[in-house]
C-alpha cells in the first residue's frame, strides 16, 4: 500500500510568469496573419463542397466575384446577383470589370489572371453561364469555382 501513498517530491504548479509572453506570441501571430477584408460581401455565401480542390498558386493574379442571393432581399430582390468589389453588376458589365482587373496587373501576367467565382449553393446555373460567356469574350478563361473541402469521400 505504501507504494501508492508516496508523494512525488515535485512542484506541481505551472509557472505563470511566462504566460504573458506566451500569450503575446500568439497575439502577434494572429495580428500578422489577420487580413481585414476590404470588401463587404452583400450576397449569401454558402459554398458548395467538393473533393478535387486545387490551390491557386499566386494570389495577386486572382480576381474575386461573388454570386448569390442578396442579403438585403427587401432592397435587391431574391434573384441571385453578381457582386464584384463593393457593387452589384450585371453580366454585361463583366467585360469591363475584367479589363479593370487586368489593368492592375503587369502586362506579361494579364493572360494568367484567374477569376475565382464564389457562388452560393442555391444560385442557379443560368446566371453563372451568362457570366462565363462574358468571361470568354473578355478572354479571362482561367476560372476557379471556389468550394470547400468535403470531409468524407463518398
Amino acid at each position: 500500500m505504501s507504494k501508492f501513498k508516496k508523494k512525488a517530491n515535485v512542484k506541481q504548479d505551472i509557472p505563470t510568469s511566462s504566460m504573458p509572453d506566451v500569450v503575446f506570441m500568439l497575439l502577434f501571430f494572429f495580428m500578422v496573419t489577420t487580413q481585414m477584408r476590404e470588401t463587404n460581401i452583400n450576397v449569401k455565401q454558402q459554398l458548395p463542397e467538393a473533393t478535387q480542390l486545387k490551390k491557386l498558386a499566386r494570389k495577386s493574379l486572382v480576381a474575386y466575384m461573388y454570386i448569390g442571393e442578396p442579403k438585403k432581399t427587401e432592397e435587391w430582390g431574391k434573384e441571385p446577383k453578381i457582386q464584384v468589389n463593393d457593387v452589384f453588376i450585371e453580366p454585361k458589365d463583366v467585360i469591363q470589370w475584367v479589363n479593370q482587373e487586368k489593368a492592375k496587373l503587369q502586362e506579361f501576367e494579364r493572360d494568367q489572371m484567374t477569376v475565382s467565382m464564389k457562388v452560393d449553393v442555391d444560385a442557379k446555373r443560368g446566371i453563372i453561364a451568362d457570366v462565363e460567356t462574358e468571361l470568354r469574350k473578355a478572354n479571362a478563361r482561367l476560372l476557379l469555382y471556389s468550394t470547400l473541402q468535403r470531409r468524407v469521400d463518398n
Partner: protein
Amino acid sequence: MPRATPDIPNASMADIAFLLLVFFLVTTTVANDRGLAIQLPPPPEALPPDMDIKIQERNLFKIQVNSFDNVLVEGNPFFGTPSELRDMIKEFVLNNGADPTSSDNPEKAIVSYKTDRGTSHKKFIEILDAAQAAYYQIYAERADVSVKKWLELSSDLANPENKRLYDIGRGRRPDGTVEIPMNLSIAEPTKAGGK
C-alpha cells in the same frame, strides 16, 4: 523625499493580452482560395466557322442535368453516388476500344456535361467534381502518386520534378500532344427551367 517609482501594474497584462488575442482569433478568416479549376473555351467568334467536328457516339459520355437536379447519364436516369459516376467515367475513358459501345481511346473520349439554366450550383459542382476526380485518379495512378499529391503538383509546374510527374500522368508525347487529355466539355445550359 524618494521619487515615486512609476511602475505599471503587470498583473493585468496577461488579461489585456488575452482580450486582444480573442479579438484577433475571432476576426481572423482563413483565406479560402481553393476550388475546382477549369479553363473556359475561347469565345465562339474566335473559332473558325467551319469547325464542325464529327464525334462518334461511342466517344461521348453524356451527362445531363435538368432544372430539378435530376441526372441523366448516357440517356438513363442516374441515382447513384458521385463516386459511382466517377468510376463510370474512368471506365469509359480507359476503355481503349475493348467495349464497342464505349470510347476508342482516351484521347478521343469526351465527357460532355450539359446542365439547365435552372440547375443548382450545388449539383453542378457535385457532377463536375466527379468528372474531374475520374481524370485526376487516372493521372495520379499513372504518375504513381496519391491524388492529393497530384492536385498539389499540378498547381506548381514551375518545379521540374512536378512537371516531369505531370507529363508522365497525362502521357505527354514529344510533339506536345497528350495521351489522356481532360476532354471535359461544359455545354451552354438549356433554357427549360427558369430564365
